[in-house]
């Protein structure tokens, strides 16, 4: 029965520890490139209290995990599902790898594969959505590897570093995910 053990090939997903993980998040957010990949809010240096309160407030409506490496159990990022629409079976996934040395090596894709299995086989979702900035080609590649398809782009919706950028919308349907499981 227990096929989902929150473990992939490279990482496992663990629940958040409000104290230690908040410290990590604050550490990561000093990296403004990390901040600018995350969302459209201006990069900002939050206090421990602000971050902890934010996490506490959002634990109920979100489903948040920390990403740990299997090799040495290091916490390298987070992944979460939020914005659940239970009638349509839709939710949004967000992911961030705070430890830069793990970028571009399949750790994020592995975490995404675990949370997609959770979303479709346990939460009974019909689709999972995400948005990514056009200046994040590494993210886009990773999401495509996990099975997401581009559904369109909000043109020039972000203004950063003196330039306008698109927000790319991606989605994966359960039927598409299931077809990919049969192949692999």
């Amino acid at each position, binding site marked *: 029965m227990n096929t989902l053990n929150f473990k992939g090939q490279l990482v496992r997903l663990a629940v958040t520890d409000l104290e230690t993980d908040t410290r990590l998040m604050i550490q990561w957010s000093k990296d403004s490139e990390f901040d600018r990949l995350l969302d459209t809010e201006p990069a900002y240096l939050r206090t421990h209290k602000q971050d902890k309160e934010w996490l506490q407030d959002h634990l109920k409506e979100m489903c948040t995990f920390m990403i740990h490496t299997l090799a040495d159990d290091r916490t390298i990022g987070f992944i979460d599902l939020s914005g659940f629409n239970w009638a349509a079976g839709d939710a949004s996934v967000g992911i961030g790898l705070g430890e830069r040395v793990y970028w571009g090596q399949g750790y994020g894709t592995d975490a995404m594969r675990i949370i997609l299995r959770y979303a479709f086989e346990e939460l009974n979702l019909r689709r999972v959505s995400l948005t990514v900035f056009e200046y994040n080609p590494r993210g886009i590649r990773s999401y495509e590897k996990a099975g997401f398809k581009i559904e369109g*782009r909000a043109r020039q919706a972000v203004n950063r570093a003196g330039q306008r950028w698109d927000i790319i919308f991606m989605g994966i349907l359960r039927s598409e995910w299931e077809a990919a499981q049969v192949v692999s």
Partner: protein
Amino acid sequence: MKINSQLFEGRYLQISAIDPDQDPQVEVNWTYDLDYSQEIMPDGPAHPLTLFEMKKQYEEWQKGAEEKRDQFNFGFHLREDDRLIGFMRVHWVSWTNGDAFLQINIGEPEMQTKYGAEAMRLALNYLFQELNVFRVGMTVPEYNLEKKSLCEGAGFVLEVNRKQACYREGRLWDRYLYGLLRSEFLNGLAEEEK
């Protein structure tokens, strides 16, 4: 647009401040129409709202308007008899990016047919010529053909097709994201003046 042109006054419609004592009750009655309640709550299941929930929502919008200054909630009234027919809602403005998310919520379908285009025009004028945004986004479910043509008529471009992201009347529907850029809005105005 001239500096002395009226932003809140159209030919048939007037944009007015919310009346927190009366407007929520009027709107609660509209939410039995699930097309309407899906519009005002695009990310969740459509359901009629209680007066308590609606008032709470109004308070949140008011808070967003006063404290964060990134939300706007105004009413559309008929000029001839001051009747409330709907709302213009800017759910957020990202000031750093000049990006806004707009809803035009008209209570009764026939009012939408009659006055939707003018409501849209007034809202866009306010957004582009006063709030000075660069882009306005709107979402429309696949089944809402009237809203779709309202967006397209105002020059919005279909940007994203979120497949099967909406469930109504026993089936899944796509949800569209429309976007209108400042340059497109201004070109549209220039075309009309020719």
